[in-house]
């Protein structure tokens, strides 16, 4: 039984179609990450799930019930905003009590005196107080319950926002880039905290981010999006080792996967003057111009030529402590790197402090078993 189901969901703003035919199923208790660059539609998709945006086409189901026509308050979801959106005039405790209060709200609570009495009765009810206290304890907020958001640090406000989301125990937690406003160190610790919470609470999390490290470390499955379309939907491992197209290949990994122009024939690929044998055979229809994808850590680098090695010249050397990154321009072969990379060079990482200098002639030996092929025309993955 799937927990969240997007069925052919699309969204248009005016003339522009920003979400195109999204169709995925999310399992119960999963930590789904919507990953992608700015403007890819990941936040819009999340907001559509929450009910903050309407859907132009398709359906959204939760636990097999259609929800896309329901207003946000009735979908049994919680949302953590990038800016936390804490109620500034309420204390931390009352911020966290608010969703519970709204759950039991009746229209006549708006009346002046009766309303105040009824609201205070709910706020002080033992089960409500217990829920808030328990959530505060889990998030280490107990000492701050009577403080106001204005006096809290970014990380503390983040936790209050989480607490407000958790206190209702919803079936789905939505988070829109919650860690972007924190500094790097805090981000790392909060990442671990959110993952821990997920394990402890066990609800379904949908998490939006543009940071691939967050995606890879936190998500059970990742949906990588671009221009409103899902490029690949799978586990972190699948996306890393088995990318569905060149965009995915070059989005994940730092430095990203290299793509070298090559020709595919029955036995392997030909890159420049070198022929590299591939362990698998590919259908004849795929023969011809392809892109050979190989990760920077799957390339051997030496000053001596070897069997099936690619000659090139070193154009850049960077030492990052534990490893070195070396960029090599190949002789007779070009890369298919996107223009923003600006360098027509293959990136190689070697452990330690590599003693190569710019201008040297070097030879790269790819580990053919780790190579992947893409169509040069469409960028789609070619499979054996």
């Amino acid at each position, binding site marked *: 039984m799937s927990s969240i189901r997007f069925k052919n969901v699309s969204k248009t*703003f005016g003339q522009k179609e920003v979400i195109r035919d999204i169709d995925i199923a999310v399992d119960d208790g999963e930590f789904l990450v919507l990953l992608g660059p700015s403007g890819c539609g990941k936040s819009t998709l999340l*907001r559509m799930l929450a009910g*903050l*945006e*309407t859907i132009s086409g398709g359906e959204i189901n939760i636990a097999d019930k259609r929800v896309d026509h329901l207003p*946000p308050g009735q979908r049994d979801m919680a949302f953590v905003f990038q800016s936390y959106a804490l109620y500034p005039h309420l204390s931390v405790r009352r911020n966290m009590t608010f969703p519970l209060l709204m759950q039991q709200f009746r229209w006549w609570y708006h009346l002046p005196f009766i309303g105040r009495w009824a609201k205070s009765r709910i706020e002080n009810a033992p089960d409500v107080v217990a829920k808030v206290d328990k959530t505060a304890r889990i998030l280490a907020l107990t000492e701050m319950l009577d403080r106001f958001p204005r006096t809290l640090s970014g990380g503390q406000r983040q936790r209050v926002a989480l607490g407000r989301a958790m206190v209702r125990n919803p079936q789905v937690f939505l988070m829109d880039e919650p860690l972007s406003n924190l500094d790097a160190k805090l981000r790392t610790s909060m990442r671990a905290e959110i993952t821990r919470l997920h394990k402890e609470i066990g609800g379904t999390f949908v998490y939006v981010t543009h940071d691939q490290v967050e995606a890879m470390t936190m998500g059970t499955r990742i949906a990588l999006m671009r221009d409103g379309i899902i490029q690949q939907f799978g586990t972190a491992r699948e996306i890393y080792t088995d990318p569905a197209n060149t965009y995915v290949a070059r989005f994940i990994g730092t430095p990203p996967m290299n793509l070298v122009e090559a020709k595919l024939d029955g036995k392997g690929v030909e890159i420049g003057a070198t022929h590299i044998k591939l362990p698998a055979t590919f259908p004849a229809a795929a023969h011809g111009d392809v892109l050979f994808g190989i990760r920077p850590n799957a390339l051997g680098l030496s000053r001596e030529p070897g069997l099936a090695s690619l000659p090139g010249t070193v154009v850049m050397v960077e030492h990052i402590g534990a490893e070195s990154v070396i960029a090599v321009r190949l002789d007779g072969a070009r890369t298919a790197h996107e223009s923003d990379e600006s360098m027509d060079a293959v990136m190689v990482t070697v452990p330690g402090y590599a003693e190569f200098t710019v201008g040297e002639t070097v030879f790269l030996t790819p580990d053919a078993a780790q190579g992947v092929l893409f169509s040069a025309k469409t960028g789609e993955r070619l499979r054996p």
Partner: protein
Amino acid sequence: MGSQTTHLPRIIAVLALLGVAIFPIYWMFVTSLTPSSELFAASPNLFPRFEQLGIYLEVFRTIPVATWLWNSFVVAAGTTVLSIVLAILPAYALSRFRFAGIAILGFALFATQMLPEAMLVVPLYAIFGQLSLLNSLFGLILANTAFVVPVITWIIKGAIDSIPLEVEEAARVDGCSRIDIVLAIVIPLITPTLAAAAVIAFFHGWNEYVFAQTLISSEALRTASVGLASFVGELSTPIHSVMTVGVIYTLPAVVFYLFAQRYVVAGMTAGSVKG
């Protein structure tokens, strides 16, 4: 929430709101174009009779509207010029300087907002009498300016607050005196706000009644506000003529304001909302 939606209840509510806002002005216009025979009829004439537009020219013959409008214009324009000229330096001082009298000046400007014109008109009448400023448009300009300068100063101060100090420091390093800075740098940068202030001052001068009524006695110098006021409630002058004068007097104010209101709103709310 989400995309733009056009709900019917909201449309109706907005139309009702606009109807309420516009109706009296519309009614003034309709009445001005209603022929005498229908003014006192059993059922009212609800739509403007454009064939009666001739009354707008006719009214200049029977009522000294032209004189009134001219006087009002002179007073309004004079108030505008004088109040802005007077307000710029203290606005700059309030924004940039910290000295002993500043807080008092700021408070004094605020306090004047509490003084009713009707109260000060008596001593002002006496003072003007001594200065021979009675029955002169210039005197009226002086009086109006006194009441509008605090608001103008506050608005201009708000605009000067938002000019970064670095711009002035650079000029200082180049050897400019404060006055030079104000004239050559500050004023050009706050032109939209000055426009807004000008509109507010002009309005005040154009709409003002109490001083215009009390400090001016000769008919030749009467402003439109006083002239029109003499018709309120009395029915001897034909109502449609009176309404015609009303429309002629109101139209420049409303049109001018609609045209400039973007700047006025920005100018007036910039300071207050941030805080």
